[in-house]
C-alpha cells in the first residue's frame, strides 16, 4: 500500500490524534510534503523543518511509499 509514516513534534502534536503523534497517511498520485501538511491541517507557516528519511526536505518534495516524514516547528529558547 502507498503509505508514508508521519511524525510531528511540539506544538504540531495537536494536529494528530493519539499520544504518539504518529500517523500513516496514504499517498496516491504524487503527494508532496506540503500536501500532507495540508491534509493534517498544519498551516505551512508553522512548519519550519521537515525531514524525509532523516534528510532535510522542502515542502514541495514528492513522497514515495514507505518514506518517514518528521515535521518540526522552530524552537529557539535558551
Amino acid at each position, binding site marked *: 500500500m502507498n503509505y508514508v509514516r508521519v511524525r510531528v513534534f511540539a*506544538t504540531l502534536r495537536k494536529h494528530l490524534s493519539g499520544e504518539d503523534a504518529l500517523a500513516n497517511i496514504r499517498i496516491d498520485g504524487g503527494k508532496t510534503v506540503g500536501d500532507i501538511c495540508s491534509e493534517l491541517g498544519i498551516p505551512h507557516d508553522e512548519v*519550519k523543518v521537515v*525531514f524525509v528519511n532523516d534528510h532535510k526536505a522542502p515542502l514541495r518534495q514528492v513522497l514515495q511509499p514507505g518514506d518517514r516524514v518528521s515535521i518540526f516547528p522552530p*524552537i529557539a529558547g535558551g
Partner: protein
Amino acid sequence: MFVAELRQEVCLQAQEREGPGGEGLTVLALDAVRDIARRCAVQPREVEICALQEEVIPLRYQRSIGSIGTDGQLTLLQSTVAVVGAGGLGGVVCEILARTGVGELVIIDGDEYDESNLNRQIHSTEQNLKQKKVDSSKERAAQINSSVSVRARDTMLSECNAECLLDGVDVVVDCLDSIPDRFLVERACARQRVPMVHGAVAGMMGQILTIYPGDVGLRALYGEEGNRRHGVEISFGNLGTVVTTVAALQSQEVVKIITGVGAAVRNRVLFLDLVSGDVHGVDVGN
C-alpha cells in the same frame, strides 16, 4: 630558569597514587597547585599546564583523563571559549566548562536575573535577583576552578562589538534566546573563522548543531533569517530539565572540538524529544 623552577616544584610535590583500575598515577593535589602558584608567582592554570606537560595529573582532572587523555586536558586548559548568553543554557555551559578545565571563558550577557529565571538558570538564586548574570557566572566559575579565568562582558553581542568580544576565542557557544541574535553570532563566527555550537529549547524539545564556517548552519533550522524572533518556546516555556540536558550536550561538543576526541554533531542536527525520550539525528548537510 623560571620554567625549570616551576617544573622542579611540580615534580617535588607530585604524589604517586593508585588509579581506579589499580594503575599507578602521578598526581598533583589542589593544595600543591596553589602552593606552587604562590611560590613561583604564576597563575594556578600555569602550574596545571606544566604538570600535564610532565605527565603529572592535577587530581581534580583525574576522572577526565581516561576519556580525553593528558593531551586533551592540556589543550582544554590552553583554550578560550565564548559563551554567548548566560541564562538557562549559558549558565549550565559555564558551570560544566569550568569544571572541565577550559582555561578561559568569555561570558557575554547584558541581562540580570529575575524570578522567572529561577526554574532553570543554574546560577540564579533567591539572593541574587536583579544582579548581572555574567557576574554570578564569573563568581561561580571562580568557586569551582581557580585555574579558569573569566572575562565577564556585561553587554549584548551586536554587529558592532562581535569582532572585539570574540577575538582570540577557539569556540563559541550559542546560548541565546532569539533567532536574529543567533544568526548574528553565526555571522560573527564565520568572520572569525571559529566553530559555533548551537543549542535551543522549547518545552520538552531541544536541539543542538555544531556549525563550522561555510556549513549550511542555522538556515537549515530556521529558514532564511529575519521572519520571526522566537520559536514555539513562547507557548511551551523552558524547563530546567530540558535546558540542562541540551546545555550538557553543547558542552560535550565543545570538549570534542577542542580535544579532537570523537566527532562533532556537524551537518546533522540532534533533535531531543524528551516527551517520548527519543533522539533524532537528521542530516542538514550542504
